[in-house]
């Protein structure tokens, strides 16, 4: 037998920083959000805002400095081409930067909810972690699986990314700050989402991987189904405002946001856009525990990076569309009653610019709050099953969005 004289293990006091401190789940965790972290996010959003300002304000001004590109105060044909190319490059950067910021926000927020630190080491409070990740993706080996369809395999992430980029073109970030101020803005939004479904399907199919194929099929079914309630809820806004132009829709919301009369459509839009960006609880296409990584199982390096950036770019852009359509866009709340932007505009040329900055601030703030809502859901919910996903879409959301449409029509007839 074991000798009886073995002492008990000495009970060593645990150092204070390693001591187990039970912490209540949920809101009390928010206290850990330090000033330093808030400042670093402010910094990052400043980067995004600076990029947007560059595109929308400085770029036309810069091009107009070249005499050959100006005809009678407006951009000439060549001027518009140059503007388009430069805007596309900068738009790419905007989506990428927005994605980097939102990935970081998601990681930090999840860490907050889950009682851990999240990224810490690169930059203040880990602010440049995603930049480091992006560089890692850029320098990784450009690898295509042997049996993959090389052309389609490369094309698919680009299609997905371009569909995200297309959304950017129609969003007005401030009065006049919109890349394409077209009268078919809403149609472009719907079209861009549909193109994205192709990219995901082709990615799953071309990578010659069973999990990829399953993920691609799931994604296609999901995206195509959720296009319908999404489009219908966008349509209600068009019915209510009477325009497909996003700038006109924003201007119509100076006093009362569309969210108030069209609350049903807003709900439908939020749920359907969750499905569009493939976030929990609708992340079936890339359900990690079922399909390994779904449609992007075989993707690595920058090809994967494009999917990733597109997904998180959409996490910025779809809430941005919601803000534009339902939450008054760049207007401050109750702008029809008293608008600080009007005060700024009264100062003349530079005041105009400041007013636009003020609008951009409100726009980014609202978008950040809506993106945070998505992250909150991601931190809380498990994932639906594929058939439940479809049932939710066809049996709940589509009838609901039709109800929303009827409500919009009736309200328009009554109030306008």
């Amino acid at each position: 037998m074991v000798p009886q004289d073995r002492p008990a293990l000495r009970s060593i006091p645990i150092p204070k920083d390693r001591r187990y401190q039970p912490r209540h789940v949920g809101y009390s965790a928010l206290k850990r959000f330090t000033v330093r972290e808030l400042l670093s996010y402010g910094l990052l959003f400043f980067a995004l805002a600076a990029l947007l300002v560059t595109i929308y304000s400085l770029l036309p001004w810069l091009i107009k400095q070249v005499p050959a590109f100006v005809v009678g105060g407006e951009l000439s044909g060549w001027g518009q081409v140059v503007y388009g190319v430069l805007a596309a490059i900068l738009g790419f950067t905007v989506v990428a930067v927005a994605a980097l910021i939102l990935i970081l926000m998601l990681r930090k927020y999840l860490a907050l909810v889950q009682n851990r630190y999240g990224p810490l080491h690169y930059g203040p409070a880990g602010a440049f972690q995603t930049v480091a990740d992006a560089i890692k993706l850029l320098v990784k080996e450009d690898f295509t699986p042997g049996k993959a369809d090389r052309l389609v395999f490369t094309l698919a992430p680009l299609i997905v990314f371009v569909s995200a980029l297309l959304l950017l073109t129609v969003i007005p970030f401030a009065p006049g700050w919109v890349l394409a101020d077209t009268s078919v803005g809403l149609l472009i939004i719907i079209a861009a989402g549909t193109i994205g479904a192709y990219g995901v399907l082709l990615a799953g199919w071309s990578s010659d991987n069973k999990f990829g194929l399953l993920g691609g099929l799931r994604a296609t079914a999901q995206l195509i189904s959720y296009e319908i309630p999404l489009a219908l809820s966008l349509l209600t806004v068009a019915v209510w405002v009477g325009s497909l132009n996003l700038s006109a829709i924003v201007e119509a919301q100076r006093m009362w946001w569309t969210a108030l009369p069209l609350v049903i459509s807003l709900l439908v839009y939020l749920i359907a856009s969750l499905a569009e960006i493939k976030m929990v609880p609708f992340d079936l296409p890339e359900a990690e525990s079922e399909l390994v990584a779904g449609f992007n199982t075989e993707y690595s390096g920058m090809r994967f990076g494009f999917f990733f950036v597109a997904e998180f770019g959409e996490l910025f852009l779809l809430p941005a569309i919601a803000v534009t359509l339902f939450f008054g866009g760049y207007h401050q709340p109750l702008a029809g009653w008293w608008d600080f932007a009007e005060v700024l505009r009264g100062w003349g040329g530079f005041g105009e610019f400041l007013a636009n900055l003020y609008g951009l601030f409100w726009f980014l703030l609202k978008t950040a709050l809506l993106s945070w809502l998505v992250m909150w859901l991601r931190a809380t919910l498990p994932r639906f099953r594929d058939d439940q996903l479809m049932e939710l879409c066809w049996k709940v959301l589509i009838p609901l969005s039709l109800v929303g449409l009827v409500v919009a029509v009736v309200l328009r007839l009554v109030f306008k």
Partner: protein
Amino acid sequence: MTMLRPTELAPVPGAQEMLVNLGPQHPATHGVLKVVLGIDGERVTRAVPHIGFLHRNHEKIEESRTYHQVIPYLDRMDYVSGLQNELPFCLAVEELAGIEVPERAKYLRTALFELNRIISHLVWIGTYMLDLGAITPFLYAFRDREAALDIVERTTGGRMLPNYFTFGGVRRDINPRFWQELTGFVDYLEGVLPEYEALTVEAPVFRARTVGIGVLPPAMAINHGISGPMLRASGVAHDLRKDQPYDAYPWLDFEVITRREGDSWARSKLRCQELYQSIDLIRQCARKAPRTGPYLGKGRLKIEAGRQRYRAVEASRGQLGVYLYSDGGPGPYRSKHRSPSFTNLQVLPDLFVGQRFSDVIAILGSMDIVLGEVDR
């Protein structure tokens, strides 16, 4: 490379099958289980489990070790609940050699056994929610498991592989604050468990995913030799803590928890109820355990040739048994383990076929297998 025997390759009539290897490297198989799934769209037409990727020859190794040398190996079977593996072997040897266990040691072993059940169920709830796509409960569960592991560490010196139980009691005395720490932990856990339940088994999406999925009828469960929470969730009141009481269980007051539904949700809910039960049992142990006295019984570890014994305990996954046959030597001549995960896994094809691909994950997770124990 898909490994299927010729008989298993016979086509399922009317199905357009695609064979998918679920594992051995797959996030949802909790280790190196491989299941070859035939899927027709999202519908599973066949499921063939392949095990043995983690086979470490436990039983054969034990034959060449002395009884004391065997115990550390036992920890490594079900690495999620290390202490529980040691108990059936200790019980069998104690009964064969006639070693008495002091009352204090019995309470100690019982309390630690139940603490290990808490640890195991917390790991289960976390990994299962991970399977279903929610990451947050995983981190909450592991955070609290950490506190339990700290108690195990301060008591036994090891965290997951404690090597603590021995023939006649436990290997070394507890520290003076043991019962205080233990009750403090269960008090804390009882406070947060309702929140976890709301976040997991009571969450609407979770219910939508698990209610009515993978229903295991009682008859089928009994025929397959299922035990533990899986069996009790099918409505069979079989609990070795009641049926073949060991250690301090005869002196503790508790009921066998059963549920009738037999589906994935019932298995999940039952484990949550068992967490509360374990908390209660630990409190009872802390109240009733003698504070002084020996922690190790006296006796001579000599087992006569030809004696054999099967002893089983109700581990967190079910009936964990060991069969010992002695040839009079210093170690077992034959040592056979009956591990609950391995037996529970046998019902897998019956539960999988006809389900959707997503449900396969929901069922597999609710079975709560540990591959270290399946393959040994």
